[in-house]
């Protein structure tokens, strides 16, 4: 069957949206199918995100708007999958588009219907904490902003039809079935949270002040029901003492919950505790947990800050039951402290950190798509490639395959897109639509002829602002040659009117006074471009969201304000000029720095898409860190994988491998890099051009100074121990082995978790027990961080008789060597001293990154390192494999400690992100960039310090001497340089000083 250059993505949360954007930007047609009525998933419900406390809505909504508007993304909401046929490369999916009873093409999202609806239903987005109309939108910033009628609540009174000025309500609208033909499928349906009702252990649903973590998230949210005030549902008071209970429905073997660890709860709980305290300082959070699983990048620091700066108290205990105090509605918690005391304490509110379950329709989806589920009901994926499902051509990303956080989800989304690239690259560009536009009308030097279109927005503006008066006023302003007012300026017929008027009146500037440019500017810009005007000859005055809606009780003043806003827009319009978007050619070749697993996977992915790739490895052999690893905890054979990868890399003609190599210099920018390296014994120098860079330089194993390592031959590292088990029989005469965790991790020198050591220790312990069941193994740990399904093996190890003993950071085990015996003294949290005689001490050494080595590369690429010397990505949550410097990406251990599977995901993700560049012959840079006024520049270099994108450098100009120069390919147009320039030598196109002054001035 012939392959199809289109992809279906099922689920439009953050994962689905990311995959859709990657693929649509790489030349594929994307069908994005969502079951609810708007995209954004759970992330849109969150208040803040860990570990940066970023506002979730702020960072996610630009991405959602982009997804909703992308011309190669066909977004369908309220859908259900009916049937799937075909095979990798060519699938046909029957999709049921359930009716919204509102025409999404006409609905403007103004919300009048929802306000007038007499039936109150529960608002699910706010987790049932608030009420909403039967006609509703999920949340105010929803994409697409289309209202839907919920037939479960609707009584059919017809009021919405009567109040809808846009005439978008269509009760007779029917469900629609469509067949969609695609080459690959990505499943991203997310998860459903565990609802503790069934067990009713914690009084959820019975006691008003017991809420789940996702409900608490809405309570925290500034756009939530309580507008960001933390109140308890029983009486609206601020709860001073809030208890957070971890592992609700996770790590639960009782049958009520799930046996695995939900991976994210420890961190989101810490975040919720911190944010609660930040919102209301009187709140004192207490977190009850078994282990604190802060295994990700910068997570441990966050936990420490939560305790030290925000006074969050951690108690290591699992609570089994809660009782309500009837008079106060407080909650009485009984718990046992680590030293064995039974305590009873009252809290004002309890938050249950509920786990992540497979999505409720996982079975249905699995059956339809013919993919297998694992023992826990999540999508079963390949041992080494966590986005590959059991069926070729179908990929999974995000929480559908295992519980995971946002950056891991985003990484996997890009990784899935990376795998789709491998499958469909030949069909790239076959199904996307490119608009043919008329040539631009030359307007330079002409006097401004401004057309002003003022929108009534049904009654949304017209009901409060005197639109005819504003229109009359606009007509009196200089250079305004046309004014018009429309019921809905955004409607399709008005676009035609605007185009006609541009021609009729020879308009060369267009102003629309209506809603917000954040959602509607691109639409109008497209319209005037279709009429032959440069899209930057457009201005918008926001007289709805920031005027009529917020001054509903003062119509006269609102009208005054609307007039001012229109005048300001006209003043600016007079100053605006066409802006050319710069086009840059792209060299379709890639540089991959580092020949470990990540680097090789990335190189092979590029090569399979026929992109010439340069793979540069410092050492003499390929393989990196993985050369010391034999198996993964889950049983994957690493050495086999490695041999296979090396073989494929070496035999691939598109990959040029340089070992024993050193990078001499990297120059250039996105799409146009030039690199020189020196490699081999003869120190040969090679130079090549490439369009992108992937940094996969890996990390190193810590060489301990502690616990007699290096002084006693019976003290070894986990990696040496693994070798011992796998290739020698030295285990036979051993009787007792002690393992110590967190050696060189989570301390002052390396204040982060190395993520892999717990799994390593358990893997080796299990293997040892298998070979020699009588051997006594004791693991001394601080927290066991077997997140996700790895929890299963932790339990297995305990069942196999491995002893786990916790020690405190302040009180590490003491080792005394006597003859051939190592005496280990541990003091447990119960304040008991335990002595273990062992004949082998295995240290779980952490992973570290070398500052000097990384700094050299970081400087060449102009990318940053974090405090722990790992490479720092562009955005911790949403751009986990990108750098702020465009065209440069990161994968594997260079980013932070992670597993092999995660490294492979990241490598594929980095390739997918890179393909959004390499797949184009030329890239278009944003036109609204900064520009230097050379005659004013004194070359002080201040702007270079202020630029977060390394877009400015100093050059020696023939006429002006030493001046700053802006690389327009890299500039994002933020204007930080301009605002700080002491000589006013930098201006920002689209927001020039002249334009802003024109707006400031009160005159016409």
């Amino acid at each position: 069957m012939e392959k199809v250059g289109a992809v279906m993505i099922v689920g439009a949360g953050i994962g689905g949206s990311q995959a859709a954007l990657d693929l649509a930007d790489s030349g594929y047609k994307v069908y994005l199918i969502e079951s609810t009525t708007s995209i954004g998933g759970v992330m849109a419900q969150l208040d803040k995100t860990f570990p940066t406390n970023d506002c979730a809505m702020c960072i996610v909504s630009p991405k959602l708007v982009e997804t909703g508007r992308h011309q190669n993304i066909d977004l369908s909401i309220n859908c259900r999958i009916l049937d799937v046929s075909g095979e990798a490369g060519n699938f046909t999916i029957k999709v049921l588009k359930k009716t919204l009873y509102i025409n999404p093409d006409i609905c403007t999202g103004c919300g009048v219907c929802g306000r007038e609806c007499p039936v109150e239903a529960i608002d699910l987005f706010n987790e049932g904490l608030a009420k909403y109309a039967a006609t509703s939108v999920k949340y105010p910033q929803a994409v697409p902003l289309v209202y839907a009628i919920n037939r479960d609540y609707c009584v059919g009174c017809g009021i919405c039809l009567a109040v809808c000025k846009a005439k978008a309500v269509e009760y007779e609208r029917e469900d629609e079935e469509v067949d969609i033909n695609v080459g690959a499928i990505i499943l991203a349906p997310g998860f459903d949270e565990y609802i503790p009702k069934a067990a009713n252990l914690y009084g959820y649903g019975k006691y008003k002040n017991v809420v789940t973590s996702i409900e608490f998230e809405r309570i925290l949210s500034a756009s939530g029901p309580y507008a960001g005030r933390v109140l308890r549902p029983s009486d609206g008071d601020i709860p001073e003492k809030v208890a957070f209970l971890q592992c609700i429905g996770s790590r639960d073997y009782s049958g009520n919950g799930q046996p695995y660890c939900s991976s994210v709860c420890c961190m989101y709980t810490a975040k919720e505790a911190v944010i609660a305290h930040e919102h209301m300082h009187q709140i004192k959070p207490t977190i009850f947990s078994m282990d604190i699983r802060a295994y990700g990048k910068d997570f441990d620091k966050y936990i420490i800050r939560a305790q030290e700066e925000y006074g969050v108290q951690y108690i290591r205990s699992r609570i089994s039951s809660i009782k309500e105090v009837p008079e106060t509605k407080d909650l009485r918690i009984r718990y046992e402290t680590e030293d064995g005391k039974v305590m009873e304490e009252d809290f004002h509110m309890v938050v249950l950190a509920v786990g992540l379950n497979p999505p409720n329709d996982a079975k249905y989806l699995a059956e339809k798509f013919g993919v297998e589920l694992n023992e826990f009901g999540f999508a079963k994926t390949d041992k080494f490639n966590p986005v590959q499902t059991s069926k070729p051509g179908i990929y999974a990303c995000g929480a559908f395959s295992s519980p995971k956080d946002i950056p891991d989800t985003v990484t996997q989304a890009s990784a899935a897109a990376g795998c789709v690239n491998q499958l469909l690259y030949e069909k790239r560009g076959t199904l996307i639509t490119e608009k043919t536009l008329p040539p631009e009308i030359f307007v330079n030097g002409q006097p401004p002829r401004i057309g002003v279109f003022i929108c009534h927005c049904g009654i949304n503006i017209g009901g409060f602002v005197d639109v005819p008066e504003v229109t009359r006023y606009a007509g009196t302003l200089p250079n305004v040659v046309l004014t018009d007012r429309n019921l809905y300026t955004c409607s399709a017929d008005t676009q035609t009117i605007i185009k006609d008027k541009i021609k009729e009146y020879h308009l060369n500037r267009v102003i629309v006074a209506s809603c917000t440019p954040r959602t509607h500017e691109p639409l109008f810009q497209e319209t005037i471009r279709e009429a032959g005007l440069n899209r930057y000859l457009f201005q918008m005055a926001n007289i709805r969201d920031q005027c009529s809606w917020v001054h509903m009780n003062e119509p006269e003043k609102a009208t005054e304000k609307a007039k001012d806003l229109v005048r300001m827009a006209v003043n600016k319009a007079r100053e605006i000029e066409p802006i050319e978007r710069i086009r840059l050619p792209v060299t379709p070749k890639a540089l991959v720095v580092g020949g470990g697993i990540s680097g090789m996977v990335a190189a092979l992915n590029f090569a399979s898409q026929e992109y010439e790739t340069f793979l540069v490895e410092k050492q003499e052999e390929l393989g990196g860190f993985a050369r010391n690893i034999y198996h993964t905890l889950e049983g994957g054979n690493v050495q086999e994988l490695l041999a296979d990868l090396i073989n494929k890399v070496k035999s691939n003609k598109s990959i040029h491998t340089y070992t024993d190599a050193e990078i001499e210099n990297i120059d250039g920018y996105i799409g146009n890099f030039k690199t020189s390296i020196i490699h081999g014994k003869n120190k040969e120098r090679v130079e090549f051009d490439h369009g992108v860079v992937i940094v996969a330089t890996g990390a190193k194993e810590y060489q301990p100074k502690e616990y007699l390592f290096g002084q006693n031959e019976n003290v070894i590292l986990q990696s040496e121990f693994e070798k011992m088990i796998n290739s020698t029989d030295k285990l036979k005469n051993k009787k007792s082995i002690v393992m110590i965790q967190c050696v060189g991790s989570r301390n002052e020198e390396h204040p982060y978790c190395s993520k892999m050591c717990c799994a390593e220790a358990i893997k080796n312990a299990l293997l040892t027990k298998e070979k020699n069941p009588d051997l006594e193994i004791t693991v001394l740990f601080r927290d066991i961080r077997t997140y996700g399904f790895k929890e299963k093996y932790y339990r297995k190890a305990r069942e196999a008789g491995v002893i786990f003993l916790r020690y405190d950071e302040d009180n590490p085990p003491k080792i005394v060597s006597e003859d051939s015996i190592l005496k280990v003294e541990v003091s447990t949290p119960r304040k008991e001293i335990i002595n273990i005689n062992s004949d082998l001490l295995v240290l779980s050494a952490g992973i570290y990154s070398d500052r000097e080595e990384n700094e050299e590369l970081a400087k060449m690429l102009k990318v940053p390192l974090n405090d722990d010397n790992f490479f720092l990505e562009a955005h911790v949550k949403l751009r986990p494999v990108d750098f702020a410097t465009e065209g440069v990406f990161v994968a594997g251990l260079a980013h932070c400690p992670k597993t092999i599977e995660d490294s492979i995901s990241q490598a594929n993700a980095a390739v997918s992100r890179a393909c959004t560049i390499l797949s184009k012959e030329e890239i278009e840079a944003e036109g609204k960039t900064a520009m230097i006024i050379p005659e004013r520049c004194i070359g002080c270099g201040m702007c270079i310090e202020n630029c977060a994108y390394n877009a400015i450098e100093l050059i020696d100009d023939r006429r002006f001497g030493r001046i700053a120069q802006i690389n327009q390919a890299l500039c994002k147009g933020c204007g930080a340089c301009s605002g700080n320039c002491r000589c006013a030598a930098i201006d920002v196109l689209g927001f020039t000083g002249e334009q802003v002054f024109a707006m400031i001035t009160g005159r016409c």
Partner: protein
Amino acid sequence: MSFEPKILGFLCNWCSYAGADLAGVSRIQYPPNMRVIRVMCSGRVDPKFIIQALELGLDGVFVMGCHPGDCHYLDGNYEAEKKFEMTKKFLSLAGLEDRIRLDWVSASEGKRYSEVVTKFVNDIKELGPSPLNGEEPDEELLENVRAIKAAVSSERMRALVGRERKITEEENVYGEKFPEEKFNELMDLAIKEEYERHRILLALEKYSKSVKDLAKELDIDPSLVLEHMLVLKSRSQVDFGEIIGNTPVFIRL
């Protein structure tokens, strides 16, 4: 002197008013307690009229229209009936439901007119004077009646009662008949909610108060008060005020 109630009557022009006239022409005697307001149709009787009359201290309100099927305006009296039912449900929340009555009197029923009026006057006499009447009216009850007055005039209640017949007796916008029991459930809930919400709004008129204050004052469960607050806030009728100790207060906008 025995208690002589003051009763207000709303009589439709075409049937009941004519019936009253007929009683006069026929010189049929009945108690003089009712003062009549002529309306063109019983459907014109806004629930607000009835509540306002009670608020002002009248002891009873009588609404009369044409017999079902006889309405001069085809179905005005059916509409009147729905509105009356809603009003009665509201008043039952304040214990005043027996002070209002709806009946049908045709133009030819002069005798019947005098009978129903006499009966109503006697019933009201038995009930005694309105607690809202006199020098010292029951302030708490008065507040509740004011809340009812605001609630019956709210857009939500008007929308529901206005469409009730259409969607439960004919068909709704989807061409279906909406089950009457389900609608009644919905209506009862809406009545309870709007009554409580308007009591809250009135209670906030002079002073800002916390959820707990309101719960105690109005004897509503505090968690329910909080839920109402969120709805009122989304309608821009209340807002969060300052926080005193650990308790935020709400202000009326």
